[in-house]
């Protein structure tokens, strides 16, 4: 008797289980939904706290600042319809347009002042360092916001496009996971490790409505399963696919691949402060031993653009294209330079960040190339936390490979090589370079371009680092989806997509 009930129960349980497994189907309204695969969750939707690129690319659809970037890297008005700069280059007046927050309240000049004051307060904002040129922000009659600078600072407008300068209601709390912005989409639901669901915002100031009502950013850490989901139609878009997966999506009829420059500067960081490496000849020898073509084929499957400068060609306005022949690939001369400097048998360690296969593979290939000119390189692969501590913070390394994400303004990118900059992890030290960067802040027009041309040349000639490539970003879409916009910054413009 007893055994009978037990087995009956076992049977019932297995039946129940089967029903659970086979049952629940959630039929999603396919038409108005788009699924985008992203590898990780955002860190925080609070503009003062977020530092992860993974957040910025999603938040681009939720938040806006006074101005924003266009796909070709130019500036356009967002919450400000237009603006004026006075002749001293220190007073910026922004004219706000009629816009509403996701919670229905209207955007006021006070909201803007509050957001910018918080953004530049080092006690509150992670990114306060970028806004130290600002002396004051205040509201003015007629829905105007006036920003006054301590001294002319050309990158200001570009800094205002960043997530850190996004505008949110003055009384907002808990923005961490309940962001309130003015963008074309609002956050509907965030299930960490599963998805971020955005829903169309009906009262966007542009009066335009995005095609897709719901946008799902699905967290898929494994590219392999993301690619297969794309092929089976469960995912519509994979932004920034690793190049090693390209062959899986190439020549597939229902998929479209967009390859655009990433505005990411991949470089071989050289610790300029190490005894042997402080010798310019040694650094130049290393630069001449690096064969970029081979790296692009070997590590990026041909999907990259060669770089000789600390800026990416994705910023055509400032990129110095004439540096290619400064230190060309020439292993024989590299070896001669090393002999000259008295380092015929140099031993170096290369510290590589494990979570970035592109950088690891590039490092493996460069180590191979350096060995051919007599530099013995030992590879040490560490996880990201260790890398940040050892290489970035303590600067205790010889060589490393890393990618520095692009910004819209050259100052933000190049200032990290200034000798006193806390982010100058290559320990580059050139008085001439420091002077140029300082001048660039207040210069404008062709003068500014010429200053940054010179600065880039110094970086290359004195080998702050060996700049390798700007990898192409491979954005793979279901061929039915149109309207993909590629930006020189790390964003996904979901509102532009349609079917």
């Amino acid at each position, binding site marked *: 008797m007893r055994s009978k009930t037990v087995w009956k129960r076992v049977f019932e349980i297995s039946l129940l289980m089967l029903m659970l497994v086979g049952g629940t189907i959630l039929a999603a309204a396919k038409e108005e939904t788009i699924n985008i695969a992203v590898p990780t969750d955002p860190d925080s939707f609070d503009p003062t706290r977020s530092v992860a690129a993974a957040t910025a690319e999603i938040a681009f659809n939720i938040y806006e600042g006074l101005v924003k970037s266009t796909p070709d890297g130019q500036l356009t008005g967002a919450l400000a319809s237009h603006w004026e700069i006075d002749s001293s280059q220190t007073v910026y007046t922004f004219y706000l347009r009629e816009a509403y927050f996701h919670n229905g309240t209207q955007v006021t000049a006070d909201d803007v002042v509050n957001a910018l004051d918080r953004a530049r307060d080092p006690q509150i904002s992670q990114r306060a360092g970028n806004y130290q040129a600002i002396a004051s922000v205040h509201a003015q009659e007629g829905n105007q916001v006036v920003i006054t600078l301590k001294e002319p600072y050309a990158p200001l407008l570009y800094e205002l496009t960043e997530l850190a300068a996004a505008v949110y209601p003055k009384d907002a709390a808990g923005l961490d996971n309940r962001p309130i912005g003015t963008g074309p989409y609002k956050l509907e639901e965030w299930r960490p490790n599963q998805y971020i669901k955005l829903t169309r915002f009906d009262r966007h100031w542009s009066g335009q409505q995005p095609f897709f009502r719901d946008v799902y950013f699905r967290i898929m850490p494994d590219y*392999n399963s993301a690619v297969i989901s794309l092929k089976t139609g469960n995912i519509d878009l994979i932004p920034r696919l*690793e190049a*090693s*997966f390209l*062959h*899986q999506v190439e020549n597939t009829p229902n998929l479209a691949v967009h390859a655009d420059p990433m505005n990411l500067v991949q470089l071989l960081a050289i610790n300029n402060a190490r005894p042997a490496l402080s010798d310019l000849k040694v650094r130049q020898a290393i630069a001449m031993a690096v064969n970029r073509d081979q790296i692009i084929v*070997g590590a990026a499957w041909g999907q990259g653009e060669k770089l000789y400068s600390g800026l990416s060609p994705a910023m055509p306005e400032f990129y110095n294209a004439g540096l290619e022949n400064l230190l060309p690939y020439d292993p024989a001369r590299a070896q001669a330079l090393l002999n000259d400097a008295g380092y015929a048998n140099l031993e170096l360690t290369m510290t590589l960040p*494990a979570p970035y296969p592109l950088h690891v593979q590039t490092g*493996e290939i460069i180590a191979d190339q350096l060995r051919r000119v007599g530099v013995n390189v030992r*590879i040490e692969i560490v996880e990201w936390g260790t890398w940040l501590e050892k290489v970035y913070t303590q600067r205790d390394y010889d060589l490393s490979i890393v990618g520095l994400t692009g910004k819209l303004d050259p100052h933000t990118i190049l200032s990290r090589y200034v000798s006193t900059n806390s982010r100058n992890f290559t320990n580059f030290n050139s008085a001439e370079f420091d002077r140029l960067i300082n001048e660039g802040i207040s210069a404008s027009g062709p003068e500014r371009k010429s200053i940054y041309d010179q600065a880039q040349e110094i970086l290359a000639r004195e080998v702050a680092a060996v700049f390798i490539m700007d990898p192409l970003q491979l954005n793979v879409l279901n061929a039915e989806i149109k309207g993909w916009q590629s930006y020189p910054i790390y964003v996904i413009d979901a509102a532009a997509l349609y079917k």
Partner: protein
Amino acid sequence: MRQRNLPLWTGVFFIAIVAVPTIISLFCTPFDPVVMDLDVRFQPPSSSNWFGTDQYGRDLFSRVMAGGQTSLAISAAAVGIGMAIGGTLGGFAGYYGKRWDELLMRLAEAFLAFPSILLALLAVTIVGPGKATVLAAIAIANIPVFMKITRASFLQQSKFEYVLAAQALGASDWRIMARHILPNSLRMILVQASASFAGALLAEASLSYLGLGVQPPEPSWGRMLREAQFYGGRAPWTVAFPGIAIALVVLGFNLVADGLRIKGK
């Protein structure tokens, strides 16, 4: 008699198929397993590259040979350490019984409840990914397993008359354990070691697949599978051969464990 040893010898045969080339790779391989040649990437198996080449144009046969060193060494070391520590503790618990036994077995049960992959992740959080982490995690997971086996066997043996006789004759505990009990418990311990070895190999593969184990350019079978999964569609041989190597060795050790068990009956 022959019939009975079939699993054992089939197992030994499977292990040998993989182990012999691995041992040879200590001295030489057909090609350098680490040096890249980007001109010959993804060559299918041929007379010069028996298993084809991988994404960097490295000879896959050489890499499977050399990868065996890492995979087999990690498994062997992990099982060895687990056996040494677990066996000793379990032996004491079984022989002395009482409070020792109570305490040690509680600990062992608690540890057994802890899946080894959880242990490995904890280890990764603490010391970061790498060969040593994987080895330590697998070794620790094996300690309670060997503790239980050894304890059970020692407990059983210590009640046998020959042990009681030896005790009566004044032989020291150490001598009794080492000379009398251990040899008689050895077979059960070996059965477990064989099964544990198979498990350790699979664990190494899984951890390396997650990127927590062996780091490049050093080859290990798990690491090779992790890298190859991206290219499975284009170059199926990069996925197949390391997988077959793992499967053969695991199959071999499972069969050896079966064989030893049968022989013991």
